[in-house]
């Protein structure tokens, strides 16, 4: 089915971008957060600073440097073009790469904190009962830090949905490829089409509130009776 409505197309592109980005973020963010939680070196702060950079840097700065890196004039973009025959900049892949970098701290930081709080005690208990590394991760770490994984994934997803600067810089505004909701909203405002802008802005607002409420609901723990 071909979607004709440009706003609906933007919504689909946005959700697709956020879903792929969140999946990649969890796959690379989990081991990175684990490594940082276990790291005892003084150089840890430099890696932490690099991960946290998107929190303080204007998105356009990240977007600008990514645009250069992904263009065929520079090595990453050149390699990509040689391998796929396609240009990397202004593609769906490019906005996913940008989103992963831009949303990285929103996934890594809650996971790192959860792993640090978990400590080694229960993991040592698991070892002494015969559980190997993957067994310990899936049957001890993951269930205990489940709430932090939900938080990390939701924040990563929500932040990606709300992205504008980075996507605009490296993705442009190609319908069905790189035109996401925030850019569509910007287009409507530029065209003084406030009714459509309202519809998009309000749906983003309501969607974000629902998502955050769901995070808090899932993380809500009933007080337990301690004897």
């Amino acid at each position, binding site marked *: 089915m071909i979607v004709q409505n440009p706003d609906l197309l933007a919504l689909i592109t946005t959700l697709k971008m956020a879903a792929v980005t969140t999946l990649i973020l969890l796959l690379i963010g989990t081991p990175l957060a684990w490594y940082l939680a276990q790291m005892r070196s003084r150089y840890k702060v430099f890696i932490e600073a690099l991960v946290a950079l998107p929190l303080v840097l204007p998105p356009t700065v990240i977007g600008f440097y990514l645009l250069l890196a992904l263009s065929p004039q520079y090595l990453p973009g050149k390699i990509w073009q040689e391998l796929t025959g396609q240009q990397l900049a202004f593609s769906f892949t490019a906005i996913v790469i940008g989103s992963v970098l831009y949303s990285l701290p929103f996934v890594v930081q809650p996971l790192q904190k959860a792993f640090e709080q978990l400590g080694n005690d229960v993991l040592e208990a698991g*070892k002494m*009962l*015969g559980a*190997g590394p993957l067994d310990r991760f899936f049957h001890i770490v993951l269930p*205990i830090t*489940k709430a932090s994984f939900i938080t990390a994934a939701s924040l990563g997803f929500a932040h990606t949905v709300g992205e504008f600067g980075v996507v605009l810089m490296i993705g442009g505004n190609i319908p069905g490829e790189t035109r996401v909701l925030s850019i569509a909203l910007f287009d409507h405002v530029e065209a003084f089409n406030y009714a459509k802008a309202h519809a998009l802005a309000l749906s983003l607002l309501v969607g974000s509130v629902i998502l955050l409420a769901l995070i808090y609901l899932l993380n809500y723990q009933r007080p337990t*009776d*301690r004897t």
Partner: protein
Amino acid sequence: MSDLNLNISVNYDPFNLTIERQLPMTGITGIFGHSGSGKSTLLRVIAGLTQNAQGTIICKEKMIFNSETNYFIKAEQRNIGLVFQDSRLFPHLTVEGNLLFAINRCKNPQLNIKDIIELTDLTVLIDKKVTQLSGGEQQRVALARALLAEPELLLLDEPLSALDKQNKSLMLSLLNKVQKTLNIPMYYVSHSLAELQQLADNLLVLNSGKVSHFGNIHQVIHQLNNGGTIHQQTSLSLPIKKHLVDYGLTSLQLNNDQEIYLPLLEQYITKNITEDSTKTDQPKHLRCFIFASDISITKHEHSGSSIVNHLAAKITDISAQQRTTLVTVQCQQQVFYVQISLWSTKRLVLKVDDEIYIQFKASAVHTLDNGDS
């Protein structure tokens, strides 16, 4: 040889733990030492939780660690269990979930979960969340969980240190029962000599990372009396003879014609409460200890004293301590340690081979079975 051969050195500058010793893989071996003596480090090295060691560890003729060849069997593959001081239960699982975690990873399960649940008295707690349990209950779950992994060797790292007197006493009885029922060798670390006196068959004493004593529990405790590092005491394991319910006393058979009395052990009283238990096939032995400072010496047989324990003995050694004298006496085969003041030593003109009497109140005979700590 089914022992544990340790030849290890661990350096945490300036601390160094060096042990070259063969430890038995039967019964309960106590590991005693003051804070920082290396007790827990030793357990962690045996368990495989630290790789920062040099040397070799051979468990039942199987090499599990050799630093020269970089051979290191991971903790999860050593089949050694460890009960931690702080239980370390998995908070996302129920009591049953914690126990199943161990069973599901046991390569050749022989034990029946129901038997272990009954043995550790967890039946009523089985569906509870572990966060809802008291400290004593959590340690019982930790013990049951460790047992269900069916380790070749069970290490216990001060498992009672966070418990109150009542729970301590219950756990000690439980550990005794578990060891006797399942026959799993245990290494029990504690800085409480009283706990170890109640449980261990052998005692390894660590002092600043080195083994200072090793041997039979009672003998080692008596050797420690001369070191000045412990509360000097006589360590005993005697058969229970009689429960004198009307008088609130229990008697223990010391020698053929000598008994010692202690406050009534109510938990041992059976239907026939005044039965002479030494006449049955297997009289129940009781571990107890008497502090040297609680025993006095008299040169004459007493008459008209309220003190119930009055035993004829012979002095075998007199050793002057800093401000007191430690007198070693022999009551037939049993040795006793008596601490008296320098003034009393001078006043009584005590000499080796003197025939004297020692006396102590029933309440001076301590056992954790009656809640003493």
